[in-house]
Structure formats: C-alpha cells, structure tokens
C-alpha cells in the first residue's frame, strides 16, 4: 500500500529522470556508430610497452588523406582508428602507417561498412522498434481483453506503453551522456538492447497487471467490494518479491557479462543493466500506481 499511497513521489522521481534523459538526448544526442552511418574501424594492438604516441600515429596517418578520422587508445596497448569507408588498398596503407618505425601493429579487427548498408541498418532498426511497439500494444490489449472493469483494457496497454517509454528513454539518455563524456557510440546492438528492455519491462508489468486482474476477479466472486486502490496495492505487494528477484537474477547474469564478458558485448550489457533497473522500477512504482491514477480520473469525470 505504501507504494500506491506515495505514488506521487515515485512519479516525480521518474519524471525528473526522464527530463534529464530527454535533455541529454536533445543537447548531446546519440552518436551513431559505423553500423548506421558507414565508415571503417581498425583496431590494432602493439607489443606491451611499445605503445607509440598518438601524435606520431596521427602524423603518419595524415599523409594518407583519409579525411576526417579519429584515433583512440584502447585496452592495455591498443589503438582504435575510425575513418570513412576504406577500400582494401587504403586499409592496407593505414595498417602500414600504424606499424611505423619497426613496431609491428597486430590487427585485431577491421570493420568497414558502406553508407548504403548503414542507412539500411538504421531503417531496419526503426522498423523493428515500431513493430515491437505495435505488437506489444496488441498483445497487452489481447491479454487483458476480459478485464474492462473498472479500467478498460486499452488503458492497461497505454499505461504499459508509458512505462516502456520511461524504460527506453532513460538508458538512451545515459548513452547520450556517455557519448559526450566517453565517446560511446550507438550501434545495432544498442537498439537490440532497447528492444529487449521493452520485452523485459512489459513482461514485468504484465505480471503485476495479471495479479490485478486475478484479484479483481477474486474480489467480485467473494463480493468483498474492496476499493480499486486497495486491490492494486495488494497486487503490488504480492508480486513485489518476484519482480525484484527476477530482475536480480537477470541483473546478476548481465552484470557478470558486463564485467568479464567479451568487449563486443560490454556496451550492450551496460544498456541492459540500466534498462532493466529502470524497467523493474517502472513496473512496480509507475505502471500499477498509474492504474489507480487513471481510475481516479475516470471517477472524477463521472461526477
């Protein structure tokens, strides 16, 4: 009951976080990686202790007329070079420049994506985001088609969507911030993580709503006439431990992935961690209390 009673406090916290995230997104924006805008990425590693100065490498690379490029240190003795799309010949030339002065740079990976493929990836990402949103709204409406009292089923869906937006905007905001501070780029895995968060958060919200559904039916059968507020509060209490525990086991697994998993999925894991925390919060502190708020609005309008 505590949660339903103090819902305004929890709303305020979420609103504040969402505003901060939206600000971060509008001021800094998300930095698209080569997945989306095309370009090349070369990662090389030097023998330990033989790390050349970035200035030397930059001077070497300048002779190639690469256009805009960036060089960043990575790992213990590696360099990450981002450029426009490189032809196989230019790629070889870049490698030669990176290995200058007898220090052999071992290439660890090379990615090159044409701008056309990038645009296509961006478009496909949008399509999948939109499809997932539509599918989830339809699914919730369907799952709750039998519950129309006292809040109609499409409102359940709408509230779930509000919670979803919350869960996706917050990690996006964090990534906009990290993009500004630490040069984090967004790639197709980032979008994938957001979609997984959508699925996870809905999953969580559904479990609570499901409880509300069951308790409503129970109340009706036993003619207890509990207030809607009470029923929602009870449902949250009953599912609280489960919500937290499920999120915890998932978080434990993802956190391990973040800490010791491969570099390739580190940002992916980070996005998931932020999103799952936001998702658990929203399904407990936002989703179900919003049901009560919507219900109260309805009541007020009836009067």
């Amino acid at each position, binding site marked *: 009951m505590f949660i339903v009673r103090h819902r305004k406090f929890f709303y305020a916290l979420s609103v504040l976080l969402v505003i901060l995230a939206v600000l971060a997104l509008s001021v800094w924006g998300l930095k698209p990686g080569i997945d989306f805008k095309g370009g090349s990425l070369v990662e090389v590693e030097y023998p330990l202790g033989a790390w050349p100065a970035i200035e030397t490498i930059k001077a070497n690379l300048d002779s190639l007329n690469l256009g805009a490029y960036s060089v960043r240190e990575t790992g213990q003795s590696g360099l990450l070079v981002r450029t426009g799309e490189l032809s196989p010949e230019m790629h070889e030339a870049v490698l030669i420049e990176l290995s200058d002065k007898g220090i052999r740079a071992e290439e660890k*990976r090379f990615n090159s994506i044409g701008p056309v493929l990038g645009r296509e*990836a961006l478009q496909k*990402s949008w399509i999948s985001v939109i499809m997932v949103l539509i599918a989830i709204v339809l699914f919730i409406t369907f799952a709750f088609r039998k519950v129309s009292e006292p809040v109609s089923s499409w409102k359940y869906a709408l509230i779930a969507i509000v919670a979803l937006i919350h869960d996706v905007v917050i990690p996006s905001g964090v990534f906009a911030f990290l993009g500004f501070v630490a040069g984090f780029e967004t790639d197709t*895995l980032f979008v994938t993580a957001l979609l997984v968060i959508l699925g996870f958060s809905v999953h969580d919200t559904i479990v609570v709503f499901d409880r509300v559904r069951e308790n409503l039916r129970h109340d009706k059968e036993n003619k207890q006439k509990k207030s809607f507020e009470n029923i929602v509060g009870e449902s949250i209490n009953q599912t609280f431990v489960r919500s937290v525990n*499920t999120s*915890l086991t*998932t978080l434990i697994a993802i956190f391990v992935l973040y800490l010791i998993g491969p570099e390739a999925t580190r940002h992916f894991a980070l996005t998931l961690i932020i999103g799952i925390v936001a998702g658990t919060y929203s399904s407990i502190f936002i989703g179900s209390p919003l049901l009560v708020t919507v219900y109260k609005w309805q009541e007020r309008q009836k009067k």
Partner: protein
Amino acid sequence: MWKKRVSALLLLALAFGVAYFAYDKNGKTDEVSRLETSRFPYKLGLDLSGGTHLVFQADTASLAAGEIADSMSALAEVVERRVNLFGVSEPLVQVEEGGTVGNTEHRLIVELPGVTDVRQAVEMIGKTPTLDFRLVRAGAENMTEEERALATVDDVFLPTGLTGRYLKHATLQFDPTTYAPVVGIEFNDEGGALFAKITKENVGKALGIFLDGSPISTPVIRQEITSKEAVISGDFKLEEAKTLVRNLNYGALPVPISLVSTQTVGATLGEGALYASINAGFIAFIAVALFLIFWYRVPGIVATVALVIYIALNLALFKLIPVTLTSAGIAGFILSLGMAVDANILIFERMKEELRRGLALPEAVKEGFHRAWLSIRDSNSSSIITAVILYYFASTPVVRGFALVFGLGVIVSMFTAITASRTLLMAIGGKGESQTTRFFFGSGAGSGMNPGINSAAAKK
C-alpha cells in the same frame, strides 16, 4: 508418490544424457581438432573463431527482373568454387536480399574463417578474367606501327557483345601441328548463335580475343563457324594455359560485384572473446544458482537443477540445429539464463502464498504451479514476440544471431519450467508436513519472521 519419483529420476537421467551430448570432450584445449572430430560440433561465428566476413553488392541493373535470381545463384556458385580453390576451410557463400523499403538490393555474403588478409581475400574473389571478343575496326588493319602504338584499344577494336557470359566450357588442348598448348572454348547455345552470326558477317576480318581487357590473339575469320567452338592460341606456356582454363571455367562472374562491407576479426581477439564469453556464462550460472539456493533453499536447489537442465537442453539445440554462436548470441544466452529463472520464481512465490494460506505442501505445489502458469505464458510471450521481430527485421547478422539464441532460450525456459521444475518439485514436495519441511520450502533471509510459517503454525 512412487510414480512421481520415478518420473523425476527418469527426467534426471534424460537430462544427464542431453548434458553428455552437449559436453565437448576435447573442447577445452584444441579448437581445430574439436571442430573436425565432433560429429555435432558447436558452430562458432567469425567473431569468435577469427576470419573475414565480406558483403558484396551485385550490380543487377543490366539484368531483367526474371534473370536476377538465377544469375545470383550462378554468382554464388562461381565465388564458392573460387574460394574453395584457395583452400579456405568451411567457407560460407550465400545470396541475400537487402535494401531499403521499395528498393531491393542483391548481395553476396562471403565468410572466410581464418582469413584475415582482406586485400588478398577480396582479390581472390573479385578478380574476374573477363573474356570478350572484339572485331578489328575497318581500316585499322592498315595502321602503321606508329599509329598502332598511339591508338587506344577502342580505336582499333569494336566490341561484338560476345563475352565470357556465353561461355559454356573451356578445355586445355594442344595444337595438332606445333603441340603448343591452346585453350579451347565452347559457347552455350546463345553464344554459339552469336558467334556464328559474327563469323558469318565478318569473313576475312580479324577477331580479337581479349582477356582482362587486353588482346591475347587476333585470328582472322576464314569462314562461318557454327560449331560453337573456338580456339585461343596465344603464345601460352603450359602453366599459363592451365591457369587460363581454370579461370575461364571457374572465372567469369555472371554479375559484377563491389565490396560494401568488411569485417575482420583476428584469431587472438576471437579466441579471447570466446573464452570471455564462456567464463561469463559459467560465472553467471554460479552466481544465479547461489542466489537461488540462498533465497529459496530446497526449491532453490530444484531451480538450480532445472537451470542445469535448461542449459544442457539449450547447448544440445545449439549443436543440433546448428546455431552459429557469436558474442552477441552468447550474450543472448546469458540473458535468457537470468530470465529462465523467472518461471521458477513465479512458481515458488505462488507456492509460498498457498502455503501461507494454510494449504498442505503437495497442494501448495500444485496450486502454485497452476496459478503461475498464466503469468509465465503471458510474460514470456512478449519476449518471444520481441525475439521474432528482431530476427526477421535484423539490421545486421549480429542482431540476428542474438535474436535466435534469445528466442530459443525463452521457449526452452518455458518448456523446462513445465517439465523439469514441476516433476522435481512434485517428487520431493510430496509428503513433508513438518515445520522443518515448511522451513526448507519457505524463503527469505530470516525464517522466523516469515509470516507464512507463523500463520500456518497458528492454524494448527
């Protein structure tokens, strides 16, 4: 009761069998020997095994819509043969349709495990011996040596439209009089007709045979040739002639292609990523299991056993389907591992509630199961929907790899929840009605404070 126990034992035996299948005997030490020896090996993506992934864009502008599919599969065949010639083990060549909405692009995906020299790889795929036949322009025969040196190829020769596209077959032959190696070519029907027409209309003129844009020989046409056959007699050495025959046969790409994406992962990085992934999976499992056992006690152990069965089933499926495992895929598996526990948690929480309401343990298990099932079904559906959409609208192969493993994981988790968890819980939760049993089936840090036990005790 005995029936339940026997089925639980059977389940465990079955799970053991699956786990044995999933277990790789020599997987720890030697990647290569493992890949070659096991009949159902794990398939590793290039990001874990090292290698190059290339995407070529095919230029289909000159082809009629109906011809595209055939030409693309012919292209894939040619590229595959060419890749095989260079001794790449287990290459993958496949045609893919892509492009933005309303604009279909045709692409060729080439995966070369173990190859990290991109330039060499692209050369061996893209280097096409283009063969074509050109007529010497009227008047060009009379050019002086100096004029000829200044003139471009186009000044002298006129393309006939007869190219390597119409080639059916090339063979190594020997000139019957000089025994010099020559290359015999046979055109297909269309090419043969064209060849007949050209030779018929241009008797007495010189026909240049061009390879890669430069003339090899310019025989003079003596009469109409209807046999669809021609002989290229350049001043070949035996090896050259052999190479040319091979390139002509395996060579001519039916569709021009250009490289649009390259991804290369060095073997060391791949291996590092593989071990990091395996370690992460293993430690994630241990951490989740510890949490479950600490929080849920006996049911926690059951959940852990169920989780082991879940992992074994998944790994077995990875082998059988087979699923190409990438870093993103393994991340999806680790994620699904954390989520798979959810079904068990739902069941246990429900069970505890029923216990609190004063139900006996067997009924509590049954009720808890029954009531949790709807939630399990509904909540997993959303993840399955996400996985399916991600799979079909995957923007990159990375995303597709993730979606497949993730979706599979969610489905398998539902399956293990209704089979393994239920069977095991029923088998051990059968008769106990003592405080101790209730304690072990309870949960939470401080058991004395557990209201379930207090109220149950009060009821007695």
